[in-house]
């Protein structure tokens, strides 16, 4: 009975979404305040019913209700409780339910935190979110109902895919989905603005914290996914340019561009139509990502067994959203263009270049990801695009991005002059040049990477020096030692957030450069007692023993790692075999380090107690994810800026006062 209640809750949520998408919108045109006022409670209602459905599915997992197909295919009585919870979003139907629940949650959050917005705007924003909600709820109810029953009921479930029985993957999808779905808010604001024909600074100020919040989730979600792939897949790589990874990276790039472009729209009123276009793009790319993952049109390590009806539905939905919003854009955008003028050398120009480069990178990745589909559609054969191509494109664009990123924070709005910037920036430039030369001399590397390492290190130092100095410059008139903290408590948060996020980029550059060029990997055959040397570390293999886990049996290897004569680590890699699915699963063992990781993964058993093994040395690999964490922290600092709190306080003023202020 309980699963039927879940199904029913979903239908009710869909019903509420249908009303949410229509009545407040109609009210916003006819000026009917009662209709517009319905938007907030409806958004909450949709969230409550989606939440009930989610809770009931969770309950089915926790009580091992294998009469539900989805539970029977993805759970097992032996599974630890944590993975029973994460199994709720471990496969297609449940992850869609999570998606729809998050969407409704964002809607409810907008309904709650929008007291300072004009009622008309709230009604339109929530109506657009209701439309998106209809799409996802309908998709779930028509093609992928998580509450479908099976008869006769199996006695035991098929277990969750062992790859997903891991803490990293329990947390990764929710963060990623929060990010994806979060861009629907920026999208809804953009569409509402187009509907109203009024795009101004206050619109940008409302959108900014929402966009940044979604971006924070997406940043953490991608970083966690990359970290998971690194330690769980046992290949030692942190990014594979797999279609599904690209599908998450493209909205991130578009979202990053959007954040920067929103800054210009808020401060200077420029780039309005471009900002709207980016908001539409970021959300469309999130939907495209769903399509690519769920339709199975591309070969990917993430691809799941799929059903063509699902692909067709998402494609239709994608066309409606993209086509509809672009048509609206073409119709309304000419009316909202224009804005402040600016000089060739100005902060606007630098942010425009940032946007151009990020868009270019997004376009490249889109091209590489969709090229196999294009080739197939044109009858040119079945292809895959190589890993090196994506790397080349990424490495060709990002140095320019980093170079400009060091200049951007120094420039002034509207116009600036070369002499002033030169005086401000010569120090970081010289320091970065020195770092470049020192790298050439002290970290010689032959082959293709020889110039990449100095460039990477040089750019990271350039970013560091430029941002440290820009902080000093901001505080130069404040003599008290606590100036920094009072600035942080005062108006400075978004500034320091920017600095922190940019330093995160510098950290990422160091990590990616070092691990790509100095990482070492060895596939070897070892007998118990054998030793192998990788990058000056000696790995001694002590053999393998069998051990039993809760729902698997594992061959557990034992390694001692020596640096010189000193033992610095013991590693315990595993090869697991899960009872229910009978699938083997490699668990790598990693010795964590701030400047290097040592990594062992078991391959296959050979005769006589020998094993095929992989040994890795990964210098600075953690900096990649720490960089992403810094970026996310920067975003967090920015959304707590006093400006947004003031904006909320201003809500108590009469509506006329708000209009004058903006």
């Amino acid at each position: 009975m309980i699963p039927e209640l879940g199904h029913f809750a979903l239908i009710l949520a869909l019903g509420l979404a249908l009303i949410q998408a229509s009545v407040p919108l109609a009210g916003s045109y006819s000026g009917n305040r009662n209709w517009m006022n319905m938007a907030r409670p409806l958004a909450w209602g949709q969230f409550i019913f989606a939440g009930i459905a989610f809770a009931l599915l969770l309950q089915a997992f926790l009580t091992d209700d294998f009469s539900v197909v989805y539970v029977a295919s993805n759970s097992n009585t032996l599974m630890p409780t944590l993975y029973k919870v994460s199994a709720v979003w471990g496969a297609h139907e449940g992850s869609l339910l999570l998606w729809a629940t998050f969407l409704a949650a964002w809607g409810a959050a907008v309904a709650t935190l929008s007291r300072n917005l004009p009622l008309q705007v709230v009604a339109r924003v929530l109506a657009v979110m209701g439309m998106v909600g209809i799409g996802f709820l309908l998709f779930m109810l028509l093609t992928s109902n998580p509450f479908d029953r099976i008869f006769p009921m199996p006695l035991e479930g098929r277990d969750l895919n062992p790859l997903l029985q891991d803490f990293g993957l329990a947390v990764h999808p929710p963060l990623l989905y929060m990010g994806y779905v979060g861009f629907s808010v920026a999208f809804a604001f953009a569409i509402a603005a187009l509907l109203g024909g009024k795009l101004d600074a206050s619109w940008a100020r409302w959108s900014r914290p929402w966009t940044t919040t979604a971006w924070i989730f997406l940043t953490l979600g991608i970083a966690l996914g990359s970290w998971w792939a690194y330690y769980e897949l046992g290949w030692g790589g942190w990014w594979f340019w797999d279609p599904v990874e690209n599908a998450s990276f493209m909205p991130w790039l578009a979202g990053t561009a959007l954040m920067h472009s929103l800054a210009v729209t808020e401060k200077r009123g420029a780039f309005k139509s471009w900002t709207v276009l980016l908001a539409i793009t970021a959300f469309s790319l999130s939907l495209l990502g769903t399509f690519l993952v769920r339709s199975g049109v591309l070969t990917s390590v993430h691809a799941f067994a799929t059903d063509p009806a699902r692909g067709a539905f998402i494609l239709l939905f994608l066309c409606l959203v993209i086509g509809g919003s672009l048509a609206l854009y073409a119709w309304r955008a000419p009316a909202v263009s224009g804005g402040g003028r600016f000089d060739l050398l100005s902060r606007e120009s630098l942010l425009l270049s940032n946007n151009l480069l990020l868009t270019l990178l997004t376009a490249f990745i889109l091209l590489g990801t969709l090229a196999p589909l294009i080739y197939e559609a044109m009858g040119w054969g079945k292809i895959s695009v190589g890993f090196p191509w994506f790397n080349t494109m990424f490495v060709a664009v990002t140095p320019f991005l980093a170079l400009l990123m060091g200049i951007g924070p120094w420039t002034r709005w509207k116009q600036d002059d070369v002499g002033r910037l030169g005086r401000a920036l010569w120090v970081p430039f010289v320091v970065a040049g020195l770092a470049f030369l020192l790298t050439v001399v002290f970290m010689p590397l032959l082959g293709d990477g020889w110039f990449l390492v100095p460039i990477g290190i040089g750019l990271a130092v350039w970013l560091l020096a430029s941002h440290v100095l820009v902080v000093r410059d901001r505080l130069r008139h404040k003599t008290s030692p606590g100036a920094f903290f009072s600035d942080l408590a005062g108006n400075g948060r978004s500034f320091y957030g920017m600095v922190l996020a940019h330093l995160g980029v510098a950290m990422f550059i160091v990590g990616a450069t070092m691990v790509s060029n100095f990482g070492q990997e060895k596939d070897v055959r070892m007998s118990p007692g054998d030793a192998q040397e990788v990058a000056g570390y000696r790995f001694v293999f002590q053999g393998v023993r069998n051990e039993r886990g809760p729902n698997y049996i594992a061959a557990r290897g034992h390694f001692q790692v020596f640096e010189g004569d000193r033992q610095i680590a013991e590693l315990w890699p595993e090869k697991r075999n899960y009872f229910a699915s009978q699938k083997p699963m490699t668990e790598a063992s990693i010795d964590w380090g701030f400047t290097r990781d040592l990594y062992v993964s078991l391959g296959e058993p050979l005769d006589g107690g020998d094993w095929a093994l992989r040994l890795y040395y990964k210098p600075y690999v953690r900096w990649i994810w720490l960089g992403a964490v810094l970026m996310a922290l920067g975003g967090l600092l920015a959304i707590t800026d006093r400006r947004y709190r003031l904006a909320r306080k201003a809500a108590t003023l009469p509506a006329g006062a708000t209009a004058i202020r903006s």
Partner: protein
Amino acid sequence: MKARQKRMMFIGLGLAGVGVAAWLAIGALRGNIAYFFSPSQVLAKEAPENAVYRLGGLVVKNSLARQADGLTVHFDVTDNAETVKVSYTGILPDLFGEGQGVVTKGRMGPGGVFVAEEVLAKHDESYMPPEVQDTLKTAHAEGIVKMASQDTNPAGNPALGNASPDQPGRVAAGDKP
């Protein structure tokens, strides 16, 4: 007018930059794509001799053989019509298995053995890479056509097509009781 000219110049430069970048990117893309071929296509010499491509199909049961060094494995990949031997040095992905779909990337080596640099792992056991699925469908369809043409071609193969009464032994062998 001056501001307008500046803006036009800015836009022009931007567009030119994007154009050049796109041109370079597409040029580089051509050198970096790997085509997909089925074993039948490889044996029909449709695949390039000296380029990297992808070969996919099902791993033939009981064909996995480990070589003396312990790290090199040989296995056969089939589309149920033709079979190609593949050699791979390194550690196979977890979900690699005989009788399952696989996609390998590499180039043809001496003696008709395909030397793979990469063996694609699957995420889910019921998942089949779309290329492999198509390949099997095509090969299956061709197989049916081949069988059908044999069945309906009594002139070409009278013994199988029309069992004549003076060859009772063949009929017995063909029709199991």
